[in-house]
């Protein structure tokens, strides 16, 4: 159901603008409409602009917001979770605008320098630790090599790192360097890990420059130690590194604890503070949508009809008599721009989720949420049609619902799954009698030696054996097409109503023509083919057929007539219900056959067969959740909605407090 909306205009003296805005912001129900071009044509009306003082205030708040965000990011995302309940620290920030800004600034001043310093220290220590962890295995390997070729005063050493694939290159390097140093060098190497080899070259100090320039020209990477290790002998550097690696984690821990203390004391306040800032800035940002004259301001927007009286009262009471709220009279074109608010009964509300895929229905047209809430689970249940599968989906949905209480989207999904699983259990029990495929049948066979079908009701066998296509194929196909005819007919009825409501009478006639076409085909099938109706209905069907094509042609033109074929294709598309229903059931039966065949091999194989059955049924259940959901959704959105659905052009975005970026 759509909520009735009213377009209102709020007018008042400029002095009361911010009081009015603050109230509207707190109420959070007015969808503010930007000033129209028509109104701006008047020489007395302008778009609202910020006064220089207000502009200054806005900039001040923007800077504060940036600084608060900076502090919060330094405290870290996990620390932000220690947020307060809403309004916990609100009294701290109560007071005039100036007091508020002062309080904010002083709080930020206290924290900013301290947190920035701590965060920077923490980050540089963490980087150092990572670096040392990388150097440790290298130095560990190099240190014994360095000891092996104990350097004397007249000698110098260089450590190298290279990929193991190029290890053979070391021999060439040694040969070339031997020429450069006149054989006054030694090179030793060892593998550091799977990919890296370390080497140390020790050579006469007099050749230092030529060795280094040779290494640079040969693109050999010299091992660069951190500045405080560079120049130290490798043994000494390794000892220093180990010592440093012992100290660093404790230092980092101390800083984290200090940040935690700050966070525990301040993060709740900071989040509230950011909320206040964002809300205040939102009020400034709303200003360009408003209009003004020399002395007055005015706001135009949409309110739910039942909120108009209350809002008017509150304006009078809290802002004063100077501000008035009036309802505007609208043309039909203006009504088309009304934002849409949906309000459905609790059982249908989760299905409003589908309007995240398509825009909500246009204002004034039918809201199909309840229709979807009935047909979606119906189609889902018909496809899954298994008591065992339905039960598993139900239990999983309940568990997820309980576990993810805070996550709105999970609650919506699980509500849809709950309703749909009940439908699957219903069809699984009363139409197909399936419990994890034909497991139920097998149990009945073992206990009472009974074979399906167990009953005959009105010429039909019960249950419908989906696992045996010879038995069930035509029944399911006819049932699927019949559901398609009913589903689309409801779509056409909605189409007629919508077009009448929108005063598109020719389109209403076109939709009526399609509905007549379907009725005439039903008569033709029942009277001509199935001979369930007297032959006179055949003549009636032909008359209706001619009338319907006439109606479609008049209402929709050539496009409408071509659409007749599209409608037939849409009906045939419902045969997917049969196809998916059969495929799922055959798959479940195949799993049971596989498991029972395996189980017949011996006692140990029984356990293996059971595990295999559980695993394969679990996969089939996952497919049974995804595939029917997508196809039921598709039958609604692609096949049925195309018969009546008009998407809204404007979504309802009330001017309300957002409660901070992080929430």
């Amino acid at each position: 159901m759509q909520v009735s909306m009213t377009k209102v205009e709020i007018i008042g003296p400029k002095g009361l603008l911010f009081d009015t805005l603050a109230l509207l912001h707190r109420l959070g129900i007015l969808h503010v409409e930007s000033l129209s071009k028509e109104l701006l044509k008047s020489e007395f009306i302008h778009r609202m602009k910020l006064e220089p003082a207000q502009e200054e205030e806005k900039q001040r708040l923007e800077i504060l917001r940036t600084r608060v965000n900076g502090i919060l990011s330094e405290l870290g995302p996990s620390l932000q979770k220690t947020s307060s309940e809403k309004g916990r620290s609100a009294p701290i920030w109560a007071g005039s605008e100036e007091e508020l800004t002062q309080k904010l600034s002083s709080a930020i001043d206290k924290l900013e320098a301290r947190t920035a310093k701590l965060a920077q220290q923490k980050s540089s220590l963490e980087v150092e630790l990572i670096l040392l962890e990388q150097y440790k295995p290298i130095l560990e390997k190099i240190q014994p090599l360095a000891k092996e070729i104990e350097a004397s005063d007249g000698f110098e050493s260089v450590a190298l790192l290279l990929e193991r694939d190029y290890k053979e290159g070391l021999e060439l390097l040694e040969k070339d360097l031997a020429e450069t140093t006149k054989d006054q060098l030694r090179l030793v190497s060892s593998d550091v890990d799977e990919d890296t080899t370390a080497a140390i070259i020790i050579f006469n100090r007099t050749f230092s420059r030529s060795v280094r320039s040779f290494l640079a020209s040969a693109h050999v990477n010299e091992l660069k130690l951190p500045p405080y290790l560079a120049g130290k002998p490798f043994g000494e550097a390794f000892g220093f590194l180990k010592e440093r690696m012992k100290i660093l984690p404790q230092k980092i821990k101390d800083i984290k604890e200090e940040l935690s203390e700050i966070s525990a004391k301040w993060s709740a306040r900071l989040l509230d503070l950011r909320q206040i800032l964002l809300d205040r800035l939102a009020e400034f940002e709303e200003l360009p949508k408003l209009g003004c004259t020399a002395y007055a301001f005015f706001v135009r927007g949409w309110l739910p009809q039942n909120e108009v009286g209350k809002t008017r009262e509150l304006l009078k009471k809290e802002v004063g008599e100077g501000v008035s709220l009036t309802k505007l009279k609208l043309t039909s074109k203006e009504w088309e721009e009304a934002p849409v608010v949906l309000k459905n009964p609790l059982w249908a509300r989760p299905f409003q989720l589908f309007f995240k895929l398509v825009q909500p229905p246009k204002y004034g047209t039918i809201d199909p949420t309840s229709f979807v809430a009935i047909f979606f689970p119906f189609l889902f249940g018909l496809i899954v049609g298994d008591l065992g599968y339905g039960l598993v989906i139900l239990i999983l949905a309940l568990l997820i619902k309980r576990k993810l209480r805070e996550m709105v989207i999970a609650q919506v999904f699980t509500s849809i799954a709950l309703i749909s699983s009940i439908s699957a259990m219903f069809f699984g029990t009363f139409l197909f009698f399936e419990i994890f495929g034909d497991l139920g049948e097998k149990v009945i066979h073992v206990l009472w030696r009974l074979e399906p079908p167990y009953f005959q009701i009105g010429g039909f066998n019960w249950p419908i054996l989906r696992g045996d296509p010879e038995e069930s194929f035509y029944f399911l196909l006819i049932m699927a097409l019949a559901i398609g005819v009913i589903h689309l007919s409801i779509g056409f009825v909605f189409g007629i109503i919508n077009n009448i409501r929108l005063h598109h009478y020719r389109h209403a006639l076109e939709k009526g023509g399609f509905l007549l076409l379907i009725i005439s085909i039903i008569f033709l099938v029942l009277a001509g083919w199935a001979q369930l109706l007297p032959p006179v209905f055949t003549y009636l069907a032909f008359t209706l057929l001619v009338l319907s094509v006439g109606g479609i042609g008049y209402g929709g033109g050539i496009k409408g007539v071509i659409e007749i074929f599209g409608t037939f294709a849409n009906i045939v598309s419902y045969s997917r219900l049969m196809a998916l229903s059969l495929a799922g059931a055959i798959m479940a039966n195949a799993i049971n056959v596989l498991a029972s065949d395996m189980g017949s091999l011996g006692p140990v194989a029984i356990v293996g067969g059971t595990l295999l059955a559980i695993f394969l049924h679990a996969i089939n259940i996952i497919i049974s959740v995804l595939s029917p959901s997508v196809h039921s959704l598709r039958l609604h959105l692609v096949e049925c909605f195309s018969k009546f659905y008009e998407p809204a052009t404007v979504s309802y975005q009330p001017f309300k407090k957002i409660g901070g970026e992080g929430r």
Partner: protein
Amino acid sequence: MNAEAWKTMWLSLSAFLSVGAAAWATAYAQARIGAAGAGAMAEKPELAGVLVLLIAIPDTIVVMGFVVGIMLALKAAQ
């Protein structure tokens, strides 16, 4: 081979082709849509829901193939 056997063979082959070719065509279309959709989703993650729906559209081909295939297979089994 008698005429009945030929008929059964051709019906079975037709059923196989009906499902097989339709499944191949669906897979081809879905692969194309999926690849394009993944690109679109990288830019606009909110399109995920619409993408699932778009991928489901070519399913009609294999569903129809399955319907025709099973009708032929049932005829062959008679």
